[in-house]
């Protein structure tokens, strides 16, 4: 794709990629499929990320959002700087213990459904900062869906992480967030459930 001109519309249709329609029954004037699939497809392709970038991995995220890698191609160009409108919390960088309650508050403020992507060794496990002031992995305070290893991970890896989140979003049952199992999981992190 790189280096070639991509026409915005017109004959060269194979250059423009759009999402496949979900499985279903089609006839003249109607298309029937399950609600799960349609909603999953819509969610997966319009994830609004909230970047929680605290250090060097955040710089790599900037490259990911830039024109070379361009996370916008995956429906995530709209960065949300308020947690209330975000679907995906991307934690990139070292989280100190003093920052942990703030991270948790940000997660709390996000509306369901929400996913968490932990980018880099620091966010996943504390990384090289095995020290009294650094949180040894954000999964000590909030649940994490996908971990991206690396110090820092390349933009390709971050994109792969986002694609993994998309797969989770696509295949998630609509009832999952109401299940007792999910509530128990949140309670194990001391997160209030309504």
């Amino acid at each position, binding site marked *: 794709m790189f280096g070639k001109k991509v026409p915005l519309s017109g004959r060269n249709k194979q250059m423009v990629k759009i999402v496949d329609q979900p499985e279903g029954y089609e006839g003249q004037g109607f298309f029937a499929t399950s609600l799960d699939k349609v909603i999953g497809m819509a969610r997966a392709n319009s994830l609004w990320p909230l970047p929680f970038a605290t250090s060097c991995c955040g710089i790599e995220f900037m490259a990911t959002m830039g024109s070379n890698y361009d996370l916008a191609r995956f429906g995530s160009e709209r960065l949300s700087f308020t947690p209330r409108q975000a679907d995906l919390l991307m934690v990139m960088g070292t989280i100190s*213990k*003093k920052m942990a309650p703030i991270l948790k508050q940000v997660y709390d403020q996000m509306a369901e459904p929400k996913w968490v992507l932990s980018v880099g060794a620091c966010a996943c496990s504390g990384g090289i900062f*095995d020290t*009294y002031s650094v949180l040894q992995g954000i999964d000590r305070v909030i649940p994490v869906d996908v971990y991206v290893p690396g110090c820092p991970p390349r933009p390709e890896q971050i994109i792969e992480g986002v694609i993994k989140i998309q797969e989770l979003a696509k295949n998630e049952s609509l009832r999952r967030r109401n299940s007792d199992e999910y509530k128990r999981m949140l309670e194990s992190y001391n997160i209030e459930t309504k």
Partner: protein
Amino acid sequence: MEQDSYGMVNIQVPAEHLIEAIQALKAYEKAPVQLLTDLCAVHYPDKAGKELEVVYHLHSLTQNLRLRLKVAIAQDAATVPTLCNEFAGANWMERETFDFYGVKFEGHPDLRRILNMDQMDYHPMLKQYALEDETRDDKDDQFFGR
């Protein structure tokens, strides 16, 4: 007591004369000290009775002369007078030194932790505490030396 180390004048001062010394240096005509560049502490666990040393870095801007003032104190009575009245910038630096070494600055207007989390119940730069995070249990093999 005066000595020279790394091209900088070192002055040892007992804690009770600290304020006097600073005031004298500020008033010294040939090289008046205007700036407190830095304030920190050092922990020497083996020096009985002088375990903690509070270090003041001073700068005379007119003469471009730097000097170091050191105050040695015992760890169980780690108190020195505050410099907030002499240098407003001492406020946060003293909070930092308190945060990491537990040195109490007498007369400080607001001696709270500044960098570490408020719930922390020790002063992490004192050498009796491990630098590593104590809550990890996955690093116990020979490579990590735990």
